[in-house]
């Protein structure tokens, strides 16, 4: 978990494409194969990310800064740095459980049930989004629905449908960069077909042989406002993170 970004997108931040595999004129690959490449490119490294979240609501915008320590897909620890009201708030994710600690109350609370659908810090992301850590290929069947350009980047358009079980989004539509295997645009839908969330990657940078989205706009389609902009300020790969950070004791 990095700040307020779901692991699915966090994975995108860590994306590194080893080689350009798809060339112009090549035949469209199998949807599952593209999805597998997207999952592989997300990686499961240890990383430390400092990020900024600009939340644009109807009353103006707020900026929330955080630092996250991520170990693989299942463990993460986040500390909020700014604004002062949020400073010192910490979140710990261990597998499928999420705890939060606020210094004002000195309480550690397990976030569960319908609370998982609440907004994170007033952003367009929910805790449920943050909790998502399984590989896409394990959750969805994928078919290639077409080819489109996002900006100047040629993309595969993949239609994902849930394989069943409890899942936040029954279907998704993703635009995958054909060369970098970065998800550049995404639409997430409810079972009814209603659009729930969208993401747009605005900037992608090369970091340590990886293509990393460094500016992403998240939008909750059910909310007013202009969405939440997530900006990666710094990222350290293969960082040494002590195990004790991923314990409830470290929250206090």
């Amino acid at each position, binding site marked *: 978990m990095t700040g307020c970004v779901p692991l699915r997108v966090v994975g995108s931040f860590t994306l590194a494409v080893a080689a350009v595999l798809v060339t112009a004129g090549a035949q469209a690959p199998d949807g599952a194969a593209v999805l597998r490449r997207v999952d592989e490119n997300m990686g499961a490294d240890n990383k430390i990310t400092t990020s900024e979240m600009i939340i644009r609501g109807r009353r103006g915008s707020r900026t929330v800064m955080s630092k996250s320590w991520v170990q693989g897909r299942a463990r993460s620890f986040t500390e909020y740095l700014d604004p002062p009201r949020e400073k010192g708030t910490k979140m710990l994710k261990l597998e499928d459980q999420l705890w939060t600690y606020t210094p004002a*109350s000195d309480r550690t609370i397990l976030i569960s049930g319908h609370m998982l659908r609440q907004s994170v810090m007033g952003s367009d992301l929910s805790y449920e989004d943050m909790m998502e850590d399984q590989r896409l290929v394990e959750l969805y069947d994928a078919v290639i629905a077409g080819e489109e350009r996002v900006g100047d980047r040629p993309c595969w358009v993949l239609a994902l449908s849930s394989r069943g079980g409890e899942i936040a989004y029954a279907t998704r539509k993703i635009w995958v960069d054909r060369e970098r295997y970065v998800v550049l645009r995404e639409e997430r839908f409810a079972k009814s077909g209603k659009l729930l969330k969208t993401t747009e990657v605005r900037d992608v940078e090369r970091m340590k042989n990886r293509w990393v989205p460094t500016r992403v706009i998240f939008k909750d389609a059910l909310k007013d406002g202009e969405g939440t902009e997530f900006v990666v300020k710094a990222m350290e790969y293969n960082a040494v993170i002590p195990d004790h950070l991923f314990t409830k004791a470290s929250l206090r």
Partner: protein
Amino acid sequence: MIRFLLKGLLRDRSRSLLPLTTVVLGSALTVIGFSWTNGAMSSMIESGARFSTGHVKVMSRAYAKEADQAPNDLALAGAGALVGELAREYPSLDWTPRIVFGGLIDIPDERGETRVQGPVAGLAIDLRSPRTPERRLLNLDKAVVRGRLPVRPGEILLSDGFAARLGVAPGASATLISATMYGSLVVRNFVVAGTVRFGVAVMDRGAMIADIEDVRGALDMADSAGEILGFFRDSPYRRDEAARLAAAFNEAHRGDSGEFAPRMVSLHEQSGLAQTLDFATQVYTLMLVFFILVMSVVLWNAGLMATLRRYGEFGIRLALGEDHGRLYRSLIAEGAIVGFVGSVAGTALGLAVSYYLQNTGFDLGSMLKNASIVVTDVLRARVTPVSYVIGFVPGLAATFLGTAVSGIGIYRRETSRLAKEFEA
């Protein structure tokens, strides 16, 4: 004449018993129906006003559009100044700011870990100001079941049943998990000062009452309020005046086009209450008309039977020189006497039942336990001056109509043929 008619009615019971019984029942049911509807509507209005709508309510325009969801991100900023303005401009009302919020109450164990959680409907009110009207409006002193009212910052009230389910007593620590005005998660500790029971299912299911300053601090809503409620001082809701007041306020703020500009709405404009109340009034009016029609038909039939049975009597009276009009009028007068006496008796019976229902009420708590509207569990009839006269409407109208229609047959009797009829 009246004495003659009265003697006839008393001595010939077949002439009076059925019509009288019909009128008594009809009048009594009308009085009971009116008093009950009046009481139920008053209960809905009063409990709804005290806990939710006020007699008038000021919200931001954006908040008003989604008021059912209590969207605190769209709350009124600068609430203190606005309350001051309202108090100056409309001094005949008490104005009080409130914040409605939702969340979870989390009860910690001895190690500070979650022991039990429950969803809570929060209401932030001015609890601690010396001149706050809230204690009176919500009848808080009488609502306390255990403990006491909050007197210090950070103290709250929980509904008694909710507190029992959570296993907390006064003095226990309770943590509110909610969202700030800007959507951030907030975790704030409070101390349970006491538990309350309002007799209103929505409030008693799982409510938390806190001082508005504490909630402003917790929800990052400094000098903000979701709603500012206005109550006519020492008088019940007055629909026309509330509507006039709201129109005047909104006109005064028409120049402010922002979505966070204040907008005033009357009780009737909120939560579909206008439709509910109008519907209830229409149903009651229909009920009254229905009573009159049914009673008229019954009395008409009774009149027809009486006309047949009194065929000979009418013939003799006509033969003796009484003209048709006089005979017809005497029948109408008989009907009026039956109607009046029946209405008096019916009204007396209806009032007795209505007073009983006013005093004891009818507990609908079990039916309202999942209700989303704010209405008191015990509904009561309400006897008003109108209750004393409303029974006369169907009582007199139906007897008049019934007798007038059935008596028309008198005019079909021809004086020239009476002798032949008697011979036969």
